[in-house]
């Protein structure tokens, strides 16, 4: 553990960008957990006398067309956006690693079926497939999560398959087999923990893309319904006002979305350096 911390400090010291990304990540996590309690105004409260006001000390990010405080809404939206992305990524991680590990471990028909399945999903433009899935299953937040999970599944399955396949005949696997462990047990207790580091990198690189994807779906009117505060919807609502110069409606939630995605991408790069120094760019 101590050695890991030392290595972590070394990587952080080497790359100030990772430190920045890590602080940003902590902030986002904080806002997602405590956001609803620290907003200065109720994110849903409308105020007819105070609509479309530019940023001021009272309303840091201004107010929207219904007089709602944009700052409070941007903060309150963190939980929903992050929640969707985390659930989707968790789902595709679990399912993807199960499929990928079995394919890499047993090979043969399992491998062929899983490979064909991922190839078929990848044959679609992924965002378009997500649109189709949500249209077919119904326009709800849960289905946004399922759609995002399905389109990300192949990435996890591929990494898990590749990492399992190269360790399939490793010494520790033979040793476990000699001690009488069953195949499933070897896969779960010996191989799976060993492929976790590259999978973690994949999660972190994938998280930003999952957030973007979910926000894009709600931008075109799928999933999250108004008046809920969500970055994609807020940008969509603000889009109508940008041509008349009320920029704060769309720019602030858009910037929040961009920062969150940027943070996860930087973190992913940093984590990859930590796990695999050879692949540094």
């Amino acid at each position: 553990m101590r050695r890991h911390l030392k290595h972590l400090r070394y990587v952080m010291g080497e790359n100030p960008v990772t430190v920045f990304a890590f602080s940003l990540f902590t902030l986002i996590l904080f806002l997602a957990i405590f956001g609803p309690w620290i907003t200065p105004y109720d994110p849903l409260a409308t105020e007819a006398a105070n609509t479309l006001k530019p940023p001021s000390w009272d309303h840091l990010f201004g107010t929207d067309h219904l007089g709602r405080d944009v700052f409070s809404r941007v903060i309150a939206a963190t939980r929903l956006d992050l929640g969707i992305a985390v659930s989707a990524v968790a789902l595709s991680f679990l399912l993807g690693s199960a499929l990928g590990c079995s394919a890499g471990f047993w090979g043969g028909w399992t491998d062929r079926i899983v490979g064909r399945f991922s190839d078929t999903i990848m044959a679609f433009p992924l965002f378009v497939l997500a649109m189709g899935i949500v249209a077919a299953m119904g326009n709800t937040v849960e289905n946004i999560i399922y759609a995002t999970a399905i389109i990300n599944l192949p990435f996890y399955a591929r990494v898990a398959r590749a990492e399992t396949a190269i360790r399939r005949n490793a010494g520790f696997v033979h040793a476990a087999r000699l001690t009488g462990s069953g195949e499933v047990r070897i896969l779960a207790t010996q191989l799976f923990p060993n492929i976790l580091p590259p999978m973690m990198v994949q999660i972190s690189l994938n998280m930003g893309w999952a957030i973007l994807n979910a926000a894009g779906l709600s931008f075109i009117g799928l999933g999250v319904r108004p008046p809920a505060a969500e970055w994609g919807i807020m940008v969509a609502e603000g889009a109508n006002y940008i041509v008349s110069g009320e920029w704060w409606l769309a720019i602030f939630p858009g910037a929040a979305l961009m920062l969150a995605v940027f943070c996860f991408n930087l973190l992913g790069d940093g984590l990859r350096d930590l796990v695999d120094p050879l692949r540094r760019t």
Partner: protein
Amino acid sequence: MGSRLIQVGRRLAQALPSVFGVIVISFVLTRALPGDPAVYFAGAMADEESIEQVRRALGLDRTWIEQFLIYVGNLANGDWGMSLSTGRPVTEELMQRLPASLELTLLGLGLAVAVAVPLGVLAATRPDSWVDHLCRLLVTAGVSLPTFFTGLFLVYIFYYLLGWAPSPLGRLDILYLSPPQVTGFYVIDSLIAGDGETLGAALAQLVLPAATLGLFALAPIARMTRAAMLGALGSEFVRTARAGGLSSAVVLGTYAFRNAALPVLTTLGMVFSFLLGANVLVEKVFSWPGIGSFAIEALVASDYAAVQGFVLAMALLFVCVNLAIDVILTLVDPRVGLDE
């Protein structure tokens, strides 16, 4: 040459399972409608008898395999269903709007390639220079940009603040008439008609949305070009070429770039997939009358046949693009055909 033809034929055959998979998923999506599709299509006023009638008309009372074969047969005959919101066949609606989307996507991709490839090559030839740092910054920032946000940002700056761009509403300003339809690409059609004014207007409308798509596609292409060029420049054949006294232009252009172009071409396939998705968002931001806008309208109106047709059309288009890229790769790759 013969071996190359065989290779190309093999690639064509490899696309068949993809097409089959795409059709299967598309079929599953059409049958996964919430609730009973027969009840949905029969309408709100339907009684038991008419629901049963619709069920038989749609073939929903048969086995899954029969239903699938009917579905494939219909697709092959060009019967992709009727759009409920417009009352016209889905294929007609899609074909009519496809040129608008393609014009935008291809120009966006072209812009991205024109900027990203030289940038990646420069960054690879001058490691740790300002070009390299710029390239890295663009690559990290570029993948974090939500396309709809970039689009709105550009509209705010270039339309509202500077007033350089025309209003972001559609393919042509309302002052102009669309050029006589030949290809459906306004830029090409106005060139054919020799109408310089319309050409200018069409280009002016295209610049911002295409730049938005270009910014989005820039990052992965630049990243791949840089990495591939770094790999090629560090390889032994480049060292040998240098040692042989070839000029640096020949080494860079003929030896390094030709080999680095292969992974970049492969990346273009992935980028195109992302672009087709991003296109939907950009079309909404700029009220672009393409298939993306059509799909969004259909989604809002629960017009399932139209949405499924859109998804299937995009997937088939993507399969074709991948196939084209694979064929080009086979033809370009200097190593193919050497084994025999």
